[in-house]
């Protein structure tokens, strides 16, 4: 029995390269990132003193954030691909597969992709880890005497962590996909609009609350500390915490926030469709909204922090370079992952809605109208995400600006938030266009075989 499920998983994978690619990329990049930084930690074991400390911080801080982000992105990618197959899972259960077998099918598929991706990622990490180390050493963050000592051990551990994370993610997704009764017809309504669970609301609110509490502590306590970096240690992650908290609440926020944007999308058919789709099927597009919020919050929050720091402490302390490099690396990493997730999520959403978009075309929407309704949805999501993300970013830079005596509004680099906002909106719109293009092209061609169905 077990063998036949594995065989089924394998055949299904070969027929579905697109869905597998998303999971593959998330696992691959996750392994590369965590693996490269893990080699720094391993190198630190062969060093001593300040150098060892610096390397451990790099490995632990960046590795820690990396693990959290990878968890988030692998979980959402696997989740989206599993949900996409709800009707197929329903079918194999109707013809006699137990929920257990259906779950095993999903888990085997994810495991197969993840093992291959983690192996590739580990190989790449061995090279990038060495590169990373030489950058850090040539930057003078560790002394020239330190030798690179990373290897298969640390990369192996990193790969294992990513594999465990994706296994957990796939189990959660599989459980959700098989929780209902068996049936061939995907119940497009009820299951799709599902309310958010109480624990999800609780986690979201807790993260937002924690981020705000850290911001308050920055202003009231750490701002008066002798160490100029005490304020940064409390406020630095606030924007990301609040951002992730809002991202967890994304479905509800999108439902609420899409309404005002209805006025902006105009009276055209595309805008009309887009505004109702974003509001009434917020759960679908919340997969896109979540990374947009986190990306905006992390980028604006952290980069503003770095600019305030370099402005108010021009001389710096011995730690300044390391700290700011760390900040930039974290931002870079989060941005990269969030950007990939925006694209991933859009591709998954469009794949999920392919039949619906074709239907729209049959009812008389031109391929152009179909495409522009998707881009209009992206515009609403981007606008909501950028506003919420910018709001979350203030949890970092406002308290830090107060702590460094710049007041509520920082003294400089005010061009940063709008620039980042424009970049994020451009990324979101480009992803939507990229994701919907094959569908629009398909519609523009007269139908092939298949009839009216």
């Amino acid at each position, binding site marked *: 029995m077990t063998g036949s499920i594995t065989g089924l998983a394998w055949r299904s994978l070969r027929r579905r390269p697109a869905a597998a690619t998303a999971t593959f990329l998330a696992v691959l990049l996750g392994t590369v990132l965590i693996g490269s930084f893990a080699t720094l930690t391993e190198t630190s074991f062969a060093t001593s003193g300040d150098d060892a400390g610096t390397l451990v911080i790099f490995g632990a801080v960046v590795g820690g954030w990396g693990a959290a982000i990878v968890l988030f992105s692998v979980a959402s990618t696997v989740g989206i691909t599993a949900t996409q197959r709800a009707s197929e899972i329903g079918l194999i259960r109707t013809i006699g597969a137990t929920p257990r077998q259906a779950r095993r099918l999903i888990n085997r598929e994810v495991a197969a992709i993840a093992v291959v991706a983690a192996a590739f990622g580990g190989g790449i990490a061995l090279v990038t880890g060495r590169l990373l180390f030489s950058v850090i050493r040539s930057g003078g963050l560790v002394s020239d005497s330190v030798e690179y000592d990373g290897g298969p051990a640390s990369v192996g551990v990193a790969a294992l962590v990513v594999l465990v994370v994706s296994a957990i993610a796939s189990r959660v997704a599989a459980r959700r996909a098989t929780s209902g009764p068996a049936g061939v017809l995907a119940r497009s309504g009820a299951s799709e609009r599902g309310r958010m669970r109480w624990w999800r609301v609780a986690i979201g609110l807790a993260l937002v609350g924690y981020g705000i509490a850290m911001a308050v502590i920055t202003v009231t306590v750490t701002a008066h500390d002798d160490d100029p970096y005490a304020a940064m240690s409390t406020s630095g992650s606030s924007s990301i915490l609040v951002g992730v908290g809002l991202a967890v609440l994304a479905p509800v926020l999108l439902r609420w926030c899409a309404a005002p944007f209805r006025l902006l999308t105009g009276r055209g058919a595309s805008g009309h469709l887009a505004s109702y789709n974003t509001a009434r099927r917020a759960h679908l597009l919340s997969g896109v909204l979540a990374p947009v919020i986190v990306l905006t919050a992390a980028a604006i929050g952290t980069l503003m922090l770095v600019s305030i720091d370099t402005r108010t402490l021009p001389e710096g302390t011995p730690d300044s370079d390391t700290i700011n490099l760390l900040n930039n690396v974290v931002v870079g990493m989060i941005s990269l992952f969030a950007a990939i997730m925006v694209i991933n999520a859009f591709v998954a959403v469009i794949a999920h809605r392919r039949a619906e978009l074709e239907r729209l075309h049959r009812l008389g929407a031109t391929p152009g109208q179909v495409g522009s309704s998707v881009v209009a949805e992206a515009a609403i999501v981007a606008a909501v995400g950028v506003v919420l993300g910018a709001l979350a970013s203030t949890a970092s830079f406002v308290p830090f600006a107060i702590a460094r005596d710049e007041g509520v509004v920082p003294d400089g680099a005010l061009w940063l938030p709008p620039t980042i906002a424009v970049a994020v909106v451009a990324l979101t719109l480009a992803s939507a266009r990229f994701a919907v293009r094959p569908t629009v092209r398909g519609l523009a061609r*007269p139908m092939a075989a298949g009839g009216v169905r």
Partner: protein
Amino acid sequence: MNPHETALEVQGLTRTYGTDGAAVVALAGIDLTFARSTFTAVMGPSGSGKSTFLSCAAGLDRPTSGRVLVGGEDVTDWDEDRRTRLRRERIGFVFQGFHLMPYLSASQNVGLPTRLAGKRPDRKRVGALLERVGLADRAHHLPDSLSGGQQQRVAIARALVTQPDVLLADEPTGALDSATARQILALLRDCVDNLGQTVVMVTHDPVAASYADEVVYLVDGRVAGRMVHPTADAVAAQMTHLDDLVVAS
């Protein structure tokens, strides 16, 4: 509505899929004329070309040869954009799977073709259509809170909103129980009798076909016979002897 006497006409319609070696002939030359205010059922076994015929008539699929005339106008060589406008403005569609947009309310679904044409739907007209199909009190419900029969009623109201030359229905009762199916068929009949609509319905249900004025049988991509004023029993009997029909014609 176009005043032309013929709502839909196909002349020498053929459709071949694939290339020479492995070509599959779906339609092998069909001539049919559907007069205004008539209800025609197109029947035939699986693979007889029913769905291909409907796709070609709707401009979703391009015939290999032959002509398609909607309201007396030859639309065969129109490009994709013009054919899209044709579907939007002059052809109403009713599908087996309803095909409502899940995130639009009943009245928004009915107004959709008008929206796509870049106009604002006429509230009164949408309301009147929903009333006609018996769903005046469900105007603001989303599809997932409507039963299958109610969803199909919304789809029929949507198909009627532009006063199309012809309403094409593809197994409109295929996903419904028999009692609900009869209501939907009565509604289609009502569209013909009281609104002057023209309905062309593909089906393989003899009961559904009995609501039509005439049944056209397709076998192997050819018209194999016709039956005027069909009854369910006569249609069922005919369906079991389709092979004889082919020989006879």
